[in-house]
């Protein structure tokens, strides 16, 4: 009898615990998304690991095992021990690591210095520079690589037609400058510099200047203040930049592809036909780097106290005086620099759409404007050859506009879904900070971002190409991959902003019995509107021009980035340049609309 009562009691307690657990929305969110994200992150990894053991007909594993089906470890032994190991694995791995490190370095130095000048000095033209500085991030990364080629190629060095610099000034840049590691790192570094500008700028902007002022009063040399006080304070932001940029650079396929650098990504593509299983091992190696970076991220989270310290506002803004001339000179230098990284590519894109042949700048050499044409825009048939490779003009080209609609749909869906899920996860994690499960959900949501895009794309391709489900070339697959990959944008933004919110605000509403939905929509979201909106706009913008992630998941006319890449590879630069312009305009229009409606923008709160 007593036993029964005890059992009933235990049962009631358990039921109560369960009821209490589910009464908290954050617990439901964490449980639900913990399960979903575990599947969406782990399942592709499992699929690609399995692929490394599978025997693929017509590839090296069939040749070495003599079997057409089944499983074997031969892909591992061949990749790591054959005489091709240096070519297929070690050299690309070294190049990949060098590229990632250099990219981090360039983006941090260039973006960080700019952030410092914008936030902590009296440099001129801040508002303009702040807006223009993020342009390279808006543009698809390889388009800068194409611009680089157009500028610096030369018959004497690269064995091609002369680029602009050679044609106009007879300057021949050395090979290391035009091909390989250096230009790849430069292009990626410039592309990701806005990342470090936004992250480091955010810290600089909110940094307590008391420590620096104290040091100044104590007559500490300026270099010492910089290295002993300022830089240590922005260390977390630098680390964050490294975390985000390293994985992205590692997974970049198009930039090294165009600039002739063999990395794990380019090797994955080139090996995929004959060494399919071994290529999957390369994807796993890239993923391992993602996991390692997650470990680093853990350390940065441990140091979160640093963030709290530096985000406390002192109410004083100490700005370095660059001098009467200095503030203008440095401003002008940055105007020139950003002209070449942000404006010049756009001008070249626009110009390219009026050249008679791709890269044919005859009008510059001859000073004859009749060497320009509008055919790339207004040709409305594809019967007359007209030098257009059977394509209709940009305004009438069904492939481009179909891809544009598809891209908009994809980007909006990814932004809405990833933004919503990420925001909820950020909220829930902030509420259960000390829970291990919350930390697990937080990490598992962040992991895909740290995995190279190409590897994630490859994993999703393998996962969803089977007997039961074949989602290749469907928006469903692209949305799934995009959402999983971009949730971290929103979850990190949301988490960081929610951590700044005192629990008392929501607790006051709870006491008044206000439902959770109302608390979210009327209190929490409005307070942290700016950060949350960034969690939606970043996935939208990134999705619009993402290639590496979607490269393996759809055909070329399906979305704009794959169409752009197709035209670039084909050498039809007028079309690819026009698509670039369309993308840039789209992003700017959306950014402006969001700015007008909500007051938030990508560089908001830093510049000007």
């Amino acid at each position: 009898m007593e036993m029964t009562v005890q059992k009933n009691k235990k049962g009631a307690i358990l039921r109560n615990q369960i009821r209490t657990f589910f009464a908290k929305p954050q617990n439901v969110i964490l449980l639900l998304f913990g399960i979903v994200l575990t599947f969406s992150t782990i399942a592709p990894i499992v699929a690609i690991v399995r692929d490394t053991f599978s025997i693929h007909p017509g590839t090296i594993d069939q040749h070495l095992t003599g079997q057409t089906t089944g499983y074997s470890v031969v892909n591992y032994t061949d990749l790591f021990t054959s005489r091709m190991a240096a070519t297929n694995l070690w050299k690309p791995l070294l190049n990949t690591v060098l590229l990632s490190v250099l990219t981090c370095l360039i983006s941090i130095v260039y973006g960080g210095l700019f952030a410092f000048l914008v936030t902590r000095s009296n440099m001129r033209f801040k508002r303009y520079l702040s807006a223009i500085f993020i342009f390279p991030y808006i543009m698809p990364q390889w388009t800068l690589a194409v611009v680089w080629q157009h500028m610096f190629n030369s018959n004497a060095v690269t064995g091609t037609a002369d680029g602009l610099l050679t044609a106009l000034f007879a300057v021949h840049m050395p090979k290391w400058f035009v091909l390989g590691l250096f230009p790849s790192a430069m292009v990626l570094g410039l592309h990701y510099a806005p990342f470090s500008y936004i992250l480091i700028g955010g810290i600089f902007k909110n940094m307590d200047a008391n420590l620096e002022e104290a040091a100044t009063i104590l007559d500490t040399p300026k270099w010492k203040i910089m290295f002993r006080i300022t830089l240590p304070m922005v260390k977390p932001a630098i680390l964050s930049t490294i975390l985000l940029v390293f994985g992205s650079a590692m997974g970049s396929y198009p930039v090294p592809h165009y600039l002739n650098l063999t990395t794990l990504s380019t090797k994955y593509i080139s090996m995929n036909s004959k060494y399919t299983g071994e290529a999957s091992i390369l994807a796993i190696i890239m993923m391992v780097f993602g996991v390692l970076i997650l470990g680093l991220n853990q350390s940065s989270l441990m140091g979160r106290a640093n963030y709290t310290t530096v985000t406390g506002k002192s109410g004083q803004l100490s700005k370095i005086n660059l001098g009467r001339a200095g503030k203008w000179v440095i401003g002008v230098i940055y105007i020139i620099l950003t002209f070449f990284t942000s404006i010049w590519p756009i001008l070249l894109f626009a110009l390219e759409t009026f050249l008679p042949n791709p890269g044919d700048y005859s009008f510059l050499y001859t000073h004859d404007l009749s060497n320009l044409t509008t055919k790339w825009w207004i040709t409305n048939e594809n019967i007359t050859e007209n030098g257009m490779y059977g394509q209709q003009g940009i305004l009438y080209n069904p492939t481009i506009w179909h891809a544009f609609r598809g891209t908009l749909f994809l980007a909006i869906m990814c932004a809405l879904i990833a933004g919503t899920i990420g925001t909820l996860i950020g909220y829930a994690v902030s509420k259960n900070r000390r829970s291990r499960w919350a930390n697990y959900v937080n990490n598992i949501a962040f992991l895909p971002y740290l995995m190279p895009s190409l590897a994630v794309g490859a994993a999703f391709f393998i996962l969803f190409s089977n007997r039961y489900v074949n989602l290749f070339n469907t928006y469903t697959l692209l949305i799934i991959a995009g959402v999983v990959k971009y949730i971290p944008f929103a979850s990190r933004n949301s988490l960081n902003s929610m951590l700044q919110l005192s629990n008392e605000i929501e607790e006051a509403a709870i006491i008044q019995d206000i439902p959770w939905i109302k608390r979210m929509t009327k209190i929490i979201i409005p307070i942290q509107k700016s950060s949350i909106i960034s969690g939606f706009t970043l996935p939208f913008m990134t999705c619009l021009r993402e290639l590496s992630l979607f490269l393996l998941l759809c055909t070329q006319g399906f979305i704009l980035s794959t169409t752009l890449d197709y035209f670039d590879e084909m050498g039809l630069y007028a079309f690819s340049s026009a698509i670039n312009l369309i993308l840039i305009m789209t992003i700017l229009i959306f950014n402006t609309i969001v700015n007008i409606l909500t007051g938030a923008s990508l560089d908001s709160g830093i510049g000007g």
Partner: protein
Amino acid sequence: MKKRILSVLLTAAMSVSLMAGCGSNNAGGEAPASAPTSGGTESAQEESTSGAATESAAPAQAENLTGVDAIIAEAEGMTLDELAAKAIEESNSQTFYGIGNSSRGKTALPLFISYLQTIDPNYNMEFEWQQPKNNKIFEQLTADSLKDSGTFSMTLIQDGNQIQTKMIDTEILKTFIPKDWADANGTTPDAYEGFLPLQTLNKVFMFNNTGDAKFTNCWDFVYDGQHPLYMDIDSELVGKNFLYMLTEDKYADMLKEAYDALDDEKKAYFDPIVAELQTDASDFGLGENGAYALAWIKLWVENYNAQTDDGPICNTLVDASATDQSALIVYSKLRSVEESATVSVNNVTVAAYQDDYVGIGGYGYNHYLFLTKNSPLPWTACAFIAYLTCTEDGFSAWGKDMGGYSSNPEVATATETTYQHQKGGYNDAGEDEFPAKDDRGYDWWTTEGELVLEDPQYCADAAFGVGSWIETLTKYADAAAE
């Protein structure tokens, strides 16, 4: 702790996959078809179009066949009009999915629908044509083959080597030989062995002629200091097939003949390389001139300047500033050059068109047509394939351009009559303004032009012999980046 959880999850994932490895079979793992035999050699045209033999040595009895095989067997006895009637019955108001390496399939499908509408004005069909990149066509077809009823009804596909090993040996694709096509080629569907080619495309040697460089021998392209522009062989695999084919006796002999025509200075440059590769040639079981083929391949791989596509190469080569550069690219790219102050087709010379040129003039590869083994609209696919290969209209999506030759001699003749590619460089006044665009045609290229032709089976056999050896060579692009 979090790291530990992740580690456990990853280990579990690895374990699951390892346990899955204990299984013995997968869905696509049926036994390969019967052993392939060699292609036919009756005529120059047929030789080029034969491809690898893929069907059983003894033709299967039609009554024992099921599904798509049975439909193909029946369809091979029907004319285009009869197939069209079947297609109308099968696919009216349906959606037809095709997949191919050429985007022109999308242009050809509306013409096919118009043709069917001449028979039944009420007929209509939606269609979608996909053109995957980066070799994904093989993975996509493989994935689609796992379903009971596939998405794709047919494919237009290149790279005989991969088709043989990944698509035919695994029975993912099925060959259908239209009766009308066989008639035009003087054979029958039963007697014909090999893949069905839609067309042969040629990549030809060209050079920028604004300087003094001379390319009068195919060895000139691999001589000291030359870096011809070429699509990377890991990016476009038919480029690798070209290299494999050079080791076949016929083409190795051509290379030796060209070598014999060189002057002593150039011979002295090549001799040590040929001598060094004699052992490798013998190890690979190549013929007596195999070492010459290997020497040419080695020099080519170690010196070609890799580019992303033939389009950019063409754009480069026709520019006046690309003095003395050379290339091996798809001939038809010349059609899209717009004349300007610095760009002109006349800035390039097609090497083989020079009177004193000796040696191979380029490489010919095929676009092949197949049904998928689980084709959802097999009759329509058969009719479409017959339409493409047996009518001028069907081939017009490709035929309007130079450098692509229909495998059907009747269609090829009609196409030439309509489009006059042999006078492609003539202006309205009847003057030969752009001689490089005067396409001399399939027969010329495969005889005097010494075009190297793809043989899928030979390529498949060479892929892990000569092919693996090629991969050990250091490409110019890799050496340059170091």
